[in-house]
């Protein structure tokens, strides 16, 4: 008893204010902030004075100076542009890796993640090996590996691997699209037939007729003239060259059809959803909406194809070195149309333009060029990250308790409904936070581009710093750029995450 009183008295030596937990916490936080500010201030002062001594005071004015260096993968940029332009090239190049990379890695990761749980032995083992090999080796090494595969394993540009090999002569593209639409309609119609025998009969006969028409090479009226596909993709030591799709003068009008198609599809989807809700009658609303959408797009294309082309068009004849007047189709066939003329007078809303090399066979003249450096970085970070995402997805699916599956089965839910309505919502809850981490990892790992000289923001800024000596400003700008990208990703992932939170007491 006495001892207790003693201890109380000794504690009372401190005034009551300094025994209040809240005040104590406040004081300790204050001290911490003061210390941090002092240290930072001191460091900043020292750096500043050190740089002043060598006449390199950090500033942003230097960004307006001429850069004076060339960059690969830089579009219209030349060495005569300013530092800030070079910086912009780097930022865009980083975004090219990150944005496309996020999409690609998610798709691959989810696929492999599902394969990891497959009952098929081969699929399971292959995907397991994929994950184990890729996530257990450094990403830098993988980027180098991809780079050397491109450099050493691929042929020089003159002997590019072409795809399709020699090009393909084929019926009009539109005809294939129509054939698919007709098959979809036949399928939809056959579903409404009661007798199974009739159902399969209608399907088989219908599809057989469509296939036969195409095999015989019968060109339907309005589907256009048969076309020749030139190889659309070239792969060589210089990277990959891919065909371009260029919107023509008809593109805008065609887009009206596309937009109307989207609106109609959404309305149909909603309407049939409402019908299902109120009557209980099951309707394949997604399929109906898709057929409507594709239908609108194709009909739009068909109507565009009916535009009259000029009967006479002046083109330049290379061989005789003179201008000649031809009909549009003849000019097109002879390949003498300029791209501007083709875009102006074509019957197609979108023009397919295969990659071609210039006369010396060195540089890609038309088409989209993808450099080996970009490929290496892109493949490196995408494939590496996808192996982690695969594990995240697998773990998320397995985290759904077995009881949930049993309850769904006991209620008689179909496998698809069970996955869509019970497993997926609960798995996503577990998957999304670590998925966001992997997205951040990908965006930050893209800075390893410097290893294969891909001109991403880090590499470009490094060059800028070397040239201008503005290290503090440069580093700050890279930091801010990565921060911006990462915060955007975090923001989106947090918003998504909120949607999947469980309500508990």
């Amino acid at each position, binding site marked *: 008893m006495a001892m207790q009183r003693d201890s109380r008295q000794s504690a009372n030596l401190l005034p009551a204010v300094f025994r209040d937990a809240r005040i104590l916490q406040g004081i300790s936080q204050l001290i911490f902030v003061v210390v941090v500010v002092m240290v930072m201030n001191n460091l900043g002062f020292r750096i500043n004075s050190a740089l002043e001594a060598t006449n390199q005071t950090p500033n942003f004015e230097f960004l307006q100076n001429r850069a004076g260096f060339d960059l690969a993968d830089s579009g219209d940029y030349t060495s005569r542009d300013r530092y800030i332009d070079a910086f912009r090239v780097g930022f865009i190049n980083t975004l090219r890796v990150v944005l496309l990379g996020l999409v690609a890695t998610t798709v691959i990761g989810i696929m492999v993640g599902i394969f990891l749980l497959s009952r098929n032995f081969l699929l399971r083992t292959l995907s397991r090996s994929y994950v184990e090999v890729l996530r257990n080796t450094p990403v830098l090494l993988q980027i180098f590996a991809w780079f050397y595969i491109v450099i050493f394993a691929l042929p020089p540009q003159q002997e590019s691997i072409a795809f399709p090999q020699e090009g393909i002569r084929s019926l009009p593209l539109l005809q294939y699209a129509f054939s698919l639409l007709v098959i979809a309609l036949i399928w939809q119609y056959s579903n409404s037939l009661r007798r199974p025998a009739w159902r399969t009969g209608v399907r088989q006969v219908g599809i057989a007729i469509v296939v036969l028409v195409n095999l015989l090479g019968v060109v339907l009226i309005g589907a256009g003239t048969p076309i020749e596909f030139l190889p659309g993709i070239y792969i060589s030591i210089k990277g990959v060259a891919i065909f371009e799709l260029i919107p023509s003068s008809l593109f805008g009008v065609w887009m009206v059809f596309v937009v109307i198609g989207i609106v109609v599809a959404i309305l149909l989807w909603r309407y049939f959803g409402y019908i299902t*809700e*109120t*009557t*209980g*009658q*099951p309707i394949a609303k997604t399929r109906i909406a898709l057929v409507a959408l594709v239908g609108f797009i194709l009909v739009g294309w068909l109507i565009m194809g009916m535009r009259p082309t000029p009967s006479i068009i002046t083109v330049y004849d290379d061989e005789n070195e003179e201008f000649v007047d031809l009909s549009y189709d003849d000019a097109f066939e002879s390949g003498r149309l300029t791209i501007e003329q083709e875009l102006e007078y074509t019957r197609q809303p979108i023009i397919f333009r295969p990659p071609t090399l210039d006369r010396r066979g060195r540089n890609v003249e038309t088409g989209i060029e993808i450099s080996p450096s970009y490929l290496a970085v892109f493949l490196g970070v995408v494939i590496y990250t996808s192996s982690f995402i695969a594990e995240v997805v697998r773990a998320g699916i397995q985290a759904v*308790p077995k*009881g*949930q599956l*049993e*309850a769904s*089965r*006991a*209620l*008689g*839910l*179909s496998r698809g*409904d069970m996955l869509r*309505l*019970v497993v997926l*919502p*609960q798995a996503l*809850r577990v998957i999304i936070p670590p998925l966001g981490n992997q997205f951040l990892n990908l965006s930050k790992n893209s800075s390893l581009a410097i290893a294969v000289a891909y001109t991403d923001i880090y590499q470009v800024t490094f060059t800028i710093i070397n040239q201008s000596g503005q290290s503090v400003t440069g580093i700050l700008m890279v930091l801010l750029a990565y921060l911006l990208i990462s915060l955007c990703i975090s923001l989106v992932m947090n918003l998504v995450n909120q949607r*999947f939170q*469980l*309500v*508990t*007491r």
Partner: protein
Amino acid sequence: MQETSTQVMASDEPIITCREMNKWFGDFHVLRNISLEVMPQEVLVIIGPSGSGKSTLIRCINRLEEHQDGTIIVNGIELSHDVQNIAEIRRETGMVFQQFNLFPHLTVMDNITLAPMKVRHWARDRAEQRAMDLLERVEIPEQAFKYPGQLSGGQQQRVAIARALAMEPKIMLFDEPTSALDPEMIKEVLDVMKELARTGMTMLVVTHEMGFAREVADRVIFMDMGRIVEQGPPENFFSPDIVHHPRTQEFLDQIL
């Protein structure tokens, strides 16, 4: 009183028939030569020590477990690998689990209406009407728009019963429905089950609640080591005058 006691229920066909059913988990022989007939509207209580195969038996009836030998016929349909048969049987059998297994991401209402809308293709109005009726019946209509995580264990189990009943099943399977509950909550769940039995539902109940068995069961089955050791009406089963199989006697001595 050992062996098969033929439950006399007029000329009615049995709604569940198991013949010479066997099941193994790996090398472990869980169910040995189970033969069983359940009549419509019968309430069957299955008791026995843990690991005796009682849960596995009722889980075989709606194909949550696959039997490897023998036949099971439910509601006139034989259980095989035919997925259509399995789906049909599952539509007609409701199941209540020890761990409730409510869907945590859906409200109580959505938990109950999900299967009727997706499997029976009911309109939402009808499914919701039915759900409210059932929630009244299990006495928690005010919880309809809460999430399972916001309910007590007893309330969750009552929602689980309502969810199974929403499909208007012919048979209800109960797999230790009160084993995960606090003592106070056991009563509220048992009351719901008693009421259900009075309405003439065919029920197979795996439980340790002997009071329930005595009061509600038409027939009690004692299982041990994967076998049906003994079965009979509860008044015989729990009567001290009856000479039991020694294994049954041992079990009853421990729990009564």
